[in-house]
């Protein structure tokens, strides 16, 4: 029986998103920047979508902008904050397990003369908030809300707290402690950060969590949050960029009047409307889904070691510390590519962070940073329409597939 178990890559359009998309194709085709009737109507749809997304995420509407993808949103968040805080510092701290979009933005920052430092993670892929104390000259800290490969939820609120505390102690130490940093002090005084001191802003990539678990940007304490509509049942081509009021940020790309100068170009209004409708519908589904999918993934984690020899479960063993819809594991002596092929022949769609499944032949930076076995890796991720039957289909095939691959490789009994 076929089963699509790669909802963390992308998930089908939510019915509410689909209905909104079809309606908005008819109603929302005009230019929302124009003042005639059709334009005003488009503007109303865009404003309503912004209000909806802001409401779900605990932000203000004027803090939310839409761009062309989650990756673009992450690029804008990282590079826009680094650009705006150039005088405060040139150091960008990123966790070792960030999505490639954040790491690529950090690399670009470095190529432009800035500095990047990586925050280590533990065996489960979790950042230690105590390690997030920013050295002087830090422009930005970027820590994802949850990891895309192993599902570990990061202590974002604690990281935000650490940044607050660090700013407080720096402020308390005063100019003497800062040691002749007259320039810094003047930057601090001119800062428009929400706090009175020069707190280092925090970006969180919430592409794995928005529309999957409750996300409140205020509760997280993040200054910037980014997400991607197609991950939660919206259409592809919509990124969400939240920049909290008072956060220093400037568009690192050429800007126009669209999206308050945060994302240039004619907005994909029907897709934005659909994304907002999908997110709103998802918000009402999350509580029940967390329980249902959480039970399925817990069952999968419990059964795997009994069904497959030498399988290593990845991510936080504590259900509270991981996404309810994702299970990642690695099978010793198994090539990930071969395993994905065997599963695909049985109609089972999953993804892998193993090197042989990547174009570069390098293993997943997430698995390497965690010290996890990088070969034989499988990520199973559930969506709103996933059922126990999907996992049964997987478990019907997986043990035999692993055994066959090990036998072909002469790796039985090792």
């Amino acid at each position, binding site marked *: 029986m076929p089963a699509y178990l790669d909802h963390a890559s992308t998930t089908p359009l939510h019915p509410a998103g689909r209905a909104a998309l079809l309606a908005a194709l008819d109603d929302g085709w005009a230019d929302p920047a124009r003042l005639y009737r059709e334009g005003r109507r488009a503007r109303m749809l865009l404003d309503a979508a912004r209000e909806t997304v802001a409401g779900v995420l605990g932000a203000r509407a004027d803090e939310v902008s839409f761009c062309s993808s989650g990756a673009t949103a992450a690029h804008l968040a990282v590079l826009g904050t680094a650009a705006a805080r150039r005088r405060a510092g040139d150091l960008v701290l990123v966790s070792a397990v960030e999505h490639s979009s954040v790491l690529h933005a950090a690399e670009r920052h470095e190529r432009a003369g800035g500095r990047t430092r990586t925050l280590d993670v533990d065996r489960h892929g979790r950042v230690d908030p105590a390690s997030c104390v920013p050295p002087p000259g830090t422009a930005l800290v970027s820590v994802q809300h949850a990891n895309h490969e192993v599902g570990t939820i990061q202590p974002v609120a604690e990281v935000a707290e650490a940044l607050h505390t660090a700013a407080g102690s720096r402020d308390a130490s005063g100019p003497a402690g800062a040691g002749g940093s007259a320039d810094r002090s003047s930057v601090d005084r001119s800062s428009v950060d929400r706090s009175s001191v020069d707190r280092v802003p925090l970006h969180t990539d919430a592409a794995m969590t928005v529309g999957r678990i409750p996300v409140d940007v205020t509760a997280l304490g993040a200054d910037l949050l980014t997400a991607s509509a197609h991950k939660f049942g919206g259409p592809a081509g919509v990124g969400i960029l939240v920049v909290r009021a008072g956060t220093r940020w400037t568009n690192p790309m050429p800007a126009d009047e669209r999206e308050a100068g945060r994302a240039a170009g004619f907005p994909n209004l029907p897709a934005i409307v659909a994304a907002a409708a999908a997110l709103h519908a998802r918000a009402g589904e999350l509580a029940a889904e967390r329980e249902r999918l959480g039970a399925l993934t817990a069952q999968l984690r419990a059964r795997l070691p009994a069904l497959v020899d030498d399988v290593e479960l990845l991510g936080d063993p504590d259900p509270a510390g991981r996404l309810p819809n994702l299970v990642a594991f690695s099978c010793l*002596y198994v090539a990930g590519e071969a395993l994905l092929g065997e599963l695909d022949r049985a109609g089972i769609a999953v993804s892998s962070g193993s090197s042989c499944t990547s174009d570069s*032949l390098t293993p997943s930076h997430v698995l390497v940073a965690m010290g996890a076995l990088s*070969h034989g890796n499988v990520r199973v991720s559930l969506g709103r329409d996933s059922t126990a039957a999907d996992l049964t289909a997987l478990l019907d095939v997986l043990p035999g597939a692993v055994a066959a691959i090990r036998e072909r490789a002469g790796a039985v009994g*090792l």
Partner: protein
Amino acid sequence: MSDADPDPALDAPDVVVDALGRLCPLPIIDLARRIGEVPVDGTVELLADDPAAAADVAAWCRLRGQQLLGTRDLPTGQAYLIRRTH
């Protein structure tokens, strides 16, 4: 893994496994096949140039309770020195 100088007595490993040119997980399978030839407390050196080997050698040692003593760079790839602990 650090490149800390291994004990000079360990410089000549009991077994050398040449997995250069082999893609993961083959170097790890080669290592697992040959570890039985190594006396307990003896060492095996795995030569590998697959980019995933560094992560996977360390993970294999952890999973199998063997000890990764150190890593050194080769003209291409790395040599991983592992002590058989049991």
